[in-house]
């Protein structure tokens, strides 16, 4: 027990002074959170720029009733000259120009950006139709009109951060589990630290146990940092009721990946080899298990492949309890698969364990 604790402590002190490992296990995944968060949350939500020539009563009335009505869809600027407005459309400075003469609303658009033109003409058409409908209802209140109501099925806050945070956290956990265990084993063997420990009355269990303790602690820190950063208003992660179930999930996931790391460490001779092999395992897992994008968006064949990846079960379990609002028991099958996976791989790793290069 004493030797287990002192090995754990020695490893922990070494880890806390290892800037590059801390960077790759804590900051690096956070950088991905920022980058992917920016990529997936941008695009399409920026309001389209429209130049209006002089007064356009349909738009002006709407804004008089509610100044923010058009804020999310159109960014209006007023010019006095129609020719100048058309020039702005041609130059791509605005998506469209609009002018109203009496009952005629004239829209100018450029074929250069058909998507923007489609959005703007659609929005303006809708506004005009709405205005006409209101006039007709005033003239003939007894005529029933059909209206449409649109509701999103998910929690309205389900932005990209909701699937990015659990997925990237899963990736971070798998990385630190595999790399931590593999690198400790290989560098300790290379530097003959393992041989030195072998010459002390210490069991293999204490050595592996110390690494397990370190990996679990690191996983909890990763979970805390990830939830902490993703919950900042800038990212806006909203956790659901049973998010605390992510704690055992993360610990079990970390153990499964630690087993892979022990296996990589057992078969690799040099730290370069171990690092290459670890990357070779983790990157395909990360891409096929929904760490970087929702798995539902992946092609069917990739979804099928993902069933053999342990990372899929970790990611899905964390999505379920952290953001999908599922109950704590819903992740038990996933946790069971992760435990079974860890036991099998861990068993193989102990069979291949070597104190020394011979």
């Amino acid at each position, binding site marked *: 027990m004493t030797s287990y604790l002192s090995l754990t402590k020695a490893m922990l*002190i*070494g880890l806390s002074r290892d800037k590059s490992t801390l960077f790759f296990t804590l900051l690096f995944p956070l950088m991905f959170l920022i980058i992917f968060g920016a990529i997936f949350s941008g695009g399409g939500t920026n309001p389209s720029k429209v130049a209006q020539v002089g007064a356009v009563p349909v738009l002006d009335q709407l804004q008089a009733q509610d100044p923010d009505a058009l804020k999310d869809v159109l960014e209006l600027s007023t010019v006095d000259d129609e020719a100048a407005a058309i020039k702005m459309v041609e130059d791509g400075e605005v998506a469209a120009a609009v002018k109203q003469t009496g009952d005629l609303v004239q829209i100018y658009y450029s074929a250069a950006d058909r998507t923007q033109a489609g959005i703007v003409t659609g929005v303006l058409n809708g506004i005009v139709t709405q205005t006409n409908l209101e006039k007709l209802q005033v003239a003939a209140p007894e005529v029933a009109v059909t209206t449409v109501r649109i509701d999103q099925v998910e929690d309205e806050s389900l932005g990209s951060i909701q699937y990015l945070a659990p997925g990237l956290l899963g990736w971070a956990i798998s990385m630190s589990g595999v790399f931590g265990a593999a690198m400790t084993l290989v560098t300790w063997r290379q*530097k003959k630290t393992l*041989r030195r420990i072998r010459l002390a009355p210490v069991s293999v269990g204490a050595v592996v146990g110390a690494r397990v303790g370190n990996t679990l602690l690191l996983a909890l820190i990763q979970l805390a940092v990830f939830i902490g950063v993703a919950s900042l208003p800038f990212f806006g992660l909203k956790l659901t009721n049973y998010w605390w179930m992510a704690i055992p999930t993360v610990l079990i996931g970390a153990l499964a990946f630690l087993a892979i790391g022990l296996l990589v460490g057992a078969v690799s001779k040099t730290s370069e080899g171990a690092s290459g092999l670890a990357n070779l395992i983790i990157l395909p897992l990360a891409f096929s298990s929904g760490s970087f994008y929702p798995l539902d968006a992946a092609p069917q064949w990739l979804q099928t492949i993902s069933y053999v990846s342990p990372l899929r079960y970790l990611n899905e379990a964390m999505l379920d309890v952290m953001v999908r609002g599922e109950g704590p028991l819903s992740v038990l099958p996933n946790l069971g698969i992760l435990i079974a996976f860890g036991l099998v791989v861990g068993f193989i790793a102990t069979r291949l364990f070597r104190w020394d290069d011979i």
Partner: protein
Amino acid sequence: MSVSIRVADVRKSYGDVVAVDGVSFEVDQGEFFGILGPNGAGKTTTLEIVEGLREADAGSVELLGMSPWPRNTALLPRMGVQLQGTAFFERLTAREQLVTFGSLYGVGPKKADAMLETVGLTDKAGTRVEKLSGGQAQRLSIACALVHDPEVVFLDEPTAALDPQARRNLWDLLRTINGEGRTVVLTTHHMDEAELLCDRVAIMDHGKILKIDPPAALVRGLDAATHITVDSGHLAPADLAAIADGVAETEDDGATITFTTRDPSTVLTALAEHRVLNGLRVRGATLEDVFLELTGREYRA
């Protein structure tokens, strides 16, 4: 006196390469025993078999009355091993390193401080191992091997790659360790080191022990000539010939004259009579000559 180590006809091959080819020796309790030989002689493999790190293909090893193979946890606390190279925990300070190794043997941190003092690293206690010089790292590694007060200490080329001053400091430390009554086994490829430190030396080459004896006995047993050197230019050629006549061979390289003789008294007396002892050096046979005699080739480490 009881026997600490008993090695009988140990053999070890790696594929076609025979690393250890029938080695036998005994080391008494409290003895300083050296295994001397060039690189690739089989010293390290022999030591690793005795320490229980490798299994011998044949033969038997007894360490403190027990077999070191397979890994014998009853034996481990009674032996200390300083490994070739420096096997440390990464990014720990010298003191943290010693405390960690100590606790693996159930030894408290006080002992770590005492060991730092013994190896003269008290002022480096807070320095990370990566920042220590070669000599300091080597001393720390010896301290790690001694932190649990072992009865038998194994040192594998402890002074390799050290500067002369660091080597001398380390020799003092090794004498102290042995003086405390511990059995010390040292491998080295430095002749002078073995000569200075060891009670007995085993000379190894090509996986075999050629001879085991105290260094002085090895040298004495060798009927080797004495080399007497004085400065050139003080002795007329006629006098030189007269002094050397029948008792020595001479060689004058312009700076020094070397007399190689089996009758040093006569040559020295004659040189003194001529008052030409300027720059006098007398070199008797060394382990290097013993090695040359035993293997028929120059010693190259």
